């Protein structure tokens, strides 16, 4: 994807108010023209970011209001389509419990969306030309589904940042995901080669900074929602917002090299936030 300039939509949004977030998400989705693209898919799957037992106000996990706003838009357009929200168990993730504890369960019920624990569903093997894997197991629910990744904008002590690409790490079909921490950047790229998101929406309304991210860092009110179809470009912009050169973040650089997206982007919408992470 060398030479391609991806378009990224930036919308400034400072609070988790349903109507305002719905408006911001509509702006992102309309600009990117994704609603039409979704029509040909049998289902839509939304990958949440529930990496630890921390409340949404800490900036650690997907805010339930973001999910609700997204489901509201999707249900209006697709009243009959199968819509799923997903996360996988891991060492510090008891996904089935977090869905209940943090208020997602009720939202899913309200919009007739399904909950999928990615570690408890059927898996399929995919052949990829990855950095670490040549064959990788992924949850079968991604097959034939339009895939929206819904991460937080955060620093990460292991990978530098966590945004669109890193969110798919939670889709690995193993419980102890830290077994890959020595090759984490390579594995992030590999899982994205197997299940690449069609749409990335990064929640930086309250992001996370400091050296204890992605779970115990400092909540940063960056006041921004970032949307794009190219996860590499979206993450390159996220890295810039956090204060990194995107080329210094190994998984972003490897992902661009693997053809998952472009490091070049053009920002449309609101100006980028200037905050200290």
């Amino acid at each position, binding site marked *: 994807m060398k030479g391609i300039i991806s378009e990224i939509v930036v919308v400034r949004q400072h609070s988790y108010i349903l109507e305002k977030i719905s408006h911001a998400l509509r702006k992102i989705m309309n600009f990117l023209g994704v609603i039409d693209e979704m029509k040909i898919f049998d289902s839509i799957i939304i990958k949440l970011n529930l990496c630890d037992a921390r409340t949404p106000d800490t900036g650690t996990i997907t805010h339930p209001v973001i999910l609700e706003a997204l489901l509201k838009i999707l249900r209006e357009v697709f009243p009959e389509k199968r819509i799923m929200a997903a996360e996988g168990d891991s060492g510090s993730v008891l996904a089935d419990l977090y869905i209940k504890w943090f*208020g997602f369960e009720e939202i899913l019920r309200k919009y007739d969306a399904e909950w999928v624990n990615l570690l408890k569903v059927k898996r399929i093997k995919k052949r990829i030309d990855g950095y670490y894997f040549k064959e990788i197991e992924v949850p079968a629910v991604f097959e034939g589904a339009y895939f929206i990744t819904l991460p937080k904008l955060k620093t990460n002590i292991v990978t530098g940042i966590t945004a669109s690409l890193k969110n798919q790490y939670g889709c690995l079909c193993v419980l102890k995901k830290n077994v890959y921490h020595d090759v984490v950047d390579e594995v992030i790229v590999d899982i994205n080669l197997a299940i690449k998101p069609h749409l990335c929406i990064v929640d930086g309304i309250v992001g996370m900074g400091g050296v204890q991210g992605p779970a115990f860092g400092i909540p940063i009110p960056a006041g921004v929602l970032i949307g794009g179809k190219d996860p590499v470009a979206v993450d390159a912009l996220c890295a810039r917002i956090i204060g990194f050169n995107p080329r210094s973040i190994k998984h972003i650089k490897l992902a661009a090299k693997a053809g998952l997206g472009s490091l070049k982007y053009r920002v449309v919408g609101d100006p980028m936030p200037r905050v200290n992470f």
Partner: protein
Amino acid sequence: MIKVGLIGAGMIARKGHLPALKRMSGVEVVAVVDVNEKVAERVAREFSISKYYTDLDEMLKGEDVDALIVCTPTPTHYDIVMKCVNEGRSVLVEKPLCIKYEEALDIAKAAEEQGVQVCVVYNYRYFPAVVRAYRRVIKGYLGRVLTLNGTIFSHFPVAWTRATWLYHEGGVLYDFLPHMVDMIVWFSGGKPCKVVSFGGDYLPSGGFTNHAQIMVEFDNGVLSSISTSWLMGTQIFNLNVHGTAGHIFLDVRYNFMKEIHGTPTPLDDAISFAQYMVNVVKGVLSGYLFVGALAHYPIILRKFMLSLRRKGRYPVTAREELDRVFILDAALTSIKSGGRMISREEYERH
């Protein structure tokens, strides 16, 4: 030779009890029981224990053990401890002894009838700073202790266990809080007689207590308040002991104690900061800070074994544990009733 059986082969058994027991002379671990056969088998192999069981009754029938160490989830303690006591075996059980006050009372009575020991593990009270602070208090350096303020925050226990048994109604009250309750009971030197608590479920739909503020009045006039939570962004285990002649600040996790008399000067602050740093460096270099309260299992087990040989007194027996279980049980009752004051008399009447 004291023959011991271990019930529950989880983390605390593997990292706390068994390494210490294996190093003790005059003690033999003859069997391990765990409902998960693979775990029981693995732990038996790892610690060279000759037999493993998945059923407690079978173990009690098959093995001639003098004492049992119970490391199972708290809600199971009552049934297991009662079974062991009724079989005439002494028991060392992880904190807290049980969930309900009447259960603790049953156990204490049964232990006295059977003439066996039932002792409870409180490993945080053995931090040298805590022991030093306690000695200062009982020697009267703080004058008369009037107030004990504790803060005990930890993250959800998901980092160390995927088990979900902790998320029962009592939740955070039965996780780390018992250690703080033990300390306030110990430092107060009195008997808790009234408890008021606020808090409960601060998640949209948790279904268990995850944040609480507890106030306790002791029969000797000492007042105490404890903040506990699974929701906070930091891990804290601090106790402030306020007396008429001074104040002790204890940072239990960092094994640090600061004693203040009068109004602290900047020099006092500088000295205490230097002491804190020396303490942290010493803790890091010795590895003590990383092992934490697990380092105290050899002391606990030695005290328990001595008490079995009638050569010493174990600090928290079932009878003494009534005070601690009363506070925990009353705190939950008070939360459920919207902050009603619960008196010890009320519990004892029932």
